[in-house]
């Protein structure tokens, strides 16, 4: 990886996450905590868990690998965005402004991590019925625009305004991090040498997914031993991930079957 601390001479914070794959049990609690926090409509899973199987019986293991937006230091999605809808904040978080997004999907093609989702139609989890919960947040999503994980920027910003420390104080920390029952996720300011993420990244034990892309993600994985071997297979290119789609299961979303990087939320609740 590139030197992750190269911006330490700058005043900006650099939010980063370390996911300890030896702790993760693949329960998908993060995936649903993200959904609950952000009101993502059917088929849109900013945070999700991929599964990868490595080895032949009996020397075989199933690995759970949580993925989402990698908050790349050099985000390709921002570079290709024709309208400036995708941009990078001073603190490194990559965001999407739906008001500027024209739904061209360039960013979805550019993202090698399948982190971006376009809302193709307004749908609810129960066909023909919008729950009071969904009413609280679905209006935030515009048809034909792209969305993705933003490290729960609203929690970070609100927390900072109260003098709280993201990654330390619960209410200033991303929803997936505070929910993880195995405490697999660590969040904080990479530029703060006292932060846990700085210490973990400095330990030299972390890896990035698809380092060959040179995009320099700010989501790192603690993956010693055989877990590192699993990751060397190149997740999360969904064509080789051990997903229901790869297992030949019929999918309501075409996203998992496309073998590429991007996710298309077209149908959600998979009703007969």
């Amino acid at each position: 990886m590139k030197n992750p601390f190269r911006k330490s001479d700058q005043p900006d914070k650099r939010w980063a996450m370390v996911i300890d794959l030896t702790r993760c049990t693949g329960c998908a609690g993060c995936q649903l905590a993200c959904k609950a926090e952000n009101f993502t409509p059917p088929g849109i899973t900013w945070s999700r868990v991929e599964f990868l199987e490595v080895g032949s019986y009996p020397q075989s293991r199933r690995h759970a690998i949580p993925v989402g937006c990698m908050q790349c230091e050099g985000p390709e999605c921002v570079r290709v965005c024709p309208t400036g809808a995708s941009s990078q904040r001073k603190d490194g978080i990559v965001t999407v402004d739906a008001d500027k997004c024209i739904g061209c999907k360039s960013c979805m093609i550019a993202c090698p991590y399948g982190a971006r989702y376009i809302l193709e139609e307004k749908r609810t989890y129960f066909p023909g019925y919008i729950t009071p919960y969904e009413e609280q947040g679905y209006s935030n999503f515009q048809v034909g625009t792209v969305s993705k994980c933003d490290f729960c920027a609203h929690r970070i910003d609100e927390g900072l305004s109260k003098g709280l420390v993201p990654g330390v104080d619960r209410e200033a920390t991303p929803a997936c991090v505070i929910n993880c029952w195995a405490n697999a996720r660590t969040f904080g300011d990479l530029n703060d040498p006292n932060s846990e993420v700085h210490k973990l990244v400095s330990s030299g034990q972390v890896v990035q997914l698809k380092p060959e892309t040179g995009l320099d993600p700010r989501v790192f994985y603690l993956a010693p031993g055989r877990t590192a071997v699993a990751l060397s297979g190149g997740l999360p290119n969904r064509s080789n991930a051990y997903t229901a789609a790869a297992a030949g299961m019929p999918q309501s979303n075409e996203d998992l079957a496309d073998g590429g990087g991007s996710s298309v939320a077209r149908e959600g609740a998979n009703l007969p």
Partner: protein
Amino acid sequence: MSIKLDKSSHALSVASKNGSDSGKDYEWKASACGLCYAQCSIVAKVKNGVIVKIEGNPDSPIGSGRLCPKGVAGIMMHYDPNRVNTPLMRTNPEKGLGVDPKWKPISWDEAETIILEKLRAVHEDDPRKLVLLRTTTIATTREAGIWSSAFGSPNSWDAGGGVHCGNGAHLIGGLFHASWSLVPDFHNCNYAIYFGASKGHGAGHSSNSNAQLAADARARGMRLVVVDPMCNFAASKATEWVPIRVGTDAAFALSMVNVILNELGVWDGEYLKAKTNAGYLIGPDSHYLRDPATNKPLVWDTNKNAAVPYDMPVNTSDISLLGTYSVNGIQAQPAFNLIKDHVRKYTPEFAEQVTTIPAETVRRVATEFATQARIGSTIEIEGQTMPLRPVAAIYFRGSQGHRNSTWNCLAIELLNQVVGASDLPGGALGFNPAMQGFPETSVPRYEPFTSTDGLMETGLWIKAHKPFPANDPKVNSLTMEDAWPLTVGTGFMAASDREEIWNAFGVGYRPEIMINVGANPVLTVGNPQTAVEALKTIPFMVSFDLFISEFSELCDIVLPDTEYMERFDVAPQFPPLHDHPAGMGEWGWPIRQPVVEPFGERRDFQEVLLKWAYELGFGNQYHAVLNKRYLLRDPWLLEPDKKYSWVDICDRRLKSVFGEDRNLEWFKENGVITWPKKPSEVYWRHHVTARVPIFYEGLKTMGEKQRKLFEEHNFAHRVDWSRWEPLPEWVECHPDDPPEYDLSAFYYRDVLHTNSFTYENPWLNEVAEKHPLSYTIAMNRATAERKGLKSGDEVTMHSPTGRKAVGRVALTDTIHPDAVGIGGCGGHMTSSQPIAKGKGVRFNELLEIDLDHMDPVNLNMDVCVRVKITKN
């Protein structure tokens, strides 16, 4: 950016209380989850009367602020438009699977008038004709059984996950650890071996707490060896996965015991002599030799060179564990000597043939376990020096879901016992068998104690009858629990042979009314058609439900129940014998409270049942039972001839434990109260003198008593009496199945679902549909390719009895070649749960519900089936 999210802060209930969030348009309310029996503590964020987020409650040790996917997804269950919101009455008299009841909405008044008339008639005639059915999923429904016992019926049936659940694990866990189940002492254990268990890695007891404890333990360096046909939740995180042929756990465990005792010559003599019946002298009839004067079991005192009552030797070290002694002309051996000889036949080479685990692996794992036990070592915890035995052998669903349920668990438990790793630092811990009470009141206070024959009796137990001393068998209830006193719950109410059994035992009455709270035994016991044929014979059935299930569709009246975020339950963790984390840390007593008002005409079943008790005139009996079960104290006792509201009873229960000031209002505000655990609570074994029966003489005795009863009823030929022997054996589950049934299908608990209950939740469904295995049949890649199957193929599993279950196979290298694994109970058949309909694989279709497919001792259903697979 597009997403104008709720920018509100994340303050917790405590912060709101302190006023730091005053002026906000939302609040956080502390309550308890109710989507599986773990009952983890939650906080719900309510904005303008709408639940917008559910998180774990960081103030409570029950989950410590973390939440599994089911808990997070509770919002979607709360707002599901398919919920039952009004009482319904069937208008179609025909009942059957898939038969439309033709529901007609009625008022609560109308419904209660009909129900009370029926109940009154049965109450006056023979109250035993009422059967109270409850789910094990929502732990509060335990209260329903209290109500029916006050009504006068012994027929409380725990259905659903219950009969698949833990009859073996609960029985052996109760006998040895005074607890419903066991976990490694995650803080101190260095080597844990799991047999068909996922503790700390998947769904189950104290899951949110255990996941954190297990992850920390693994990070600390605890080695985890998982013996399981499938590399699933725990095995995926394990140091080592040991794939085993389905249902052969006892062979592996007994071989390990053999290696430890006979090849390595390792055991914890001090522990065995002081804390078990290892030194009790056993006669040729497999019973204790007893002192004629006191009737106490005898031990051989090496100091006196004589047989003396077990409690006579001044130093327990004088008790002999080995040898043969002649006592009054009878040749007797210490129980330990018998065990040591008994396991010799379980050589690692024999175990390899049975389990497919290489003999060298058996020897290596046994050696690691014995070495890591560090027999003789001690540790100081908060000033107390105690033995340190940092190994644990853990068993649950997988190893105990067989016809050999009792012996499988007993065999594995021997591993903990021979090295003394039992409720001591580092070892296998029961879930909170001892509690010294809230410091200000010393309530509740319980601890295992010395009972009959010097053996341990639980201080507190979940069921009315304890594992030891067991009740004498008798015939009374329709569930037949009285005739099989070592069971935790039976499936007979839904069984195909129930009439045969009732007739044989002369049960002179039949169910007239069934009242259900939340269970769905049509899908969660065994073959649905079998269950329906049994249940539809009951003349009048009422169900308190959140959703219309396949069971509700057999009912005459369905009542809309409140879910966990709409009602009070002031002791969701009590008794804390499985859903409160074990080990050192904090005690937590949270409450469940409504975070929103009940929607529609939903009513709390507890309020309704209380009202019915008063209207039917058994309020005094109900008060008496509640006073006892809720540990109510003066002046908060429920008095005769008075009427109380359910909320008032909740208030009295809290005051009885915590005193006047910590009443319901206090708990509503604070959500939970905590206090530190003491080493003498967690590691109670160190000071409690009671012994545990590594030679399960009580099993032999029970077999003799049951045989006598069964012979009186000409039923003795229906069970294999060899299964009541005190020393465990490995027994093949299905020795007579034809060879073309070449695979063992088993079901496991999925982390994404609770039995059949949660399949209707669209968030969980969305995750499960994309999971490689959640909704599929996991099949070994090489086995499948040999059969010409590829991932995604729809297949039918055929059982030897002609049952079928359909699903899609997923090829994987993470399962034994002889096995196919299916997660959860699968989705629903009814159109009333449209998200759940047709999802997953309904494994239970394959299960016969009859005595021949249960462990004859504890009546656990055999949850593995030999199958052949055909491509559709």
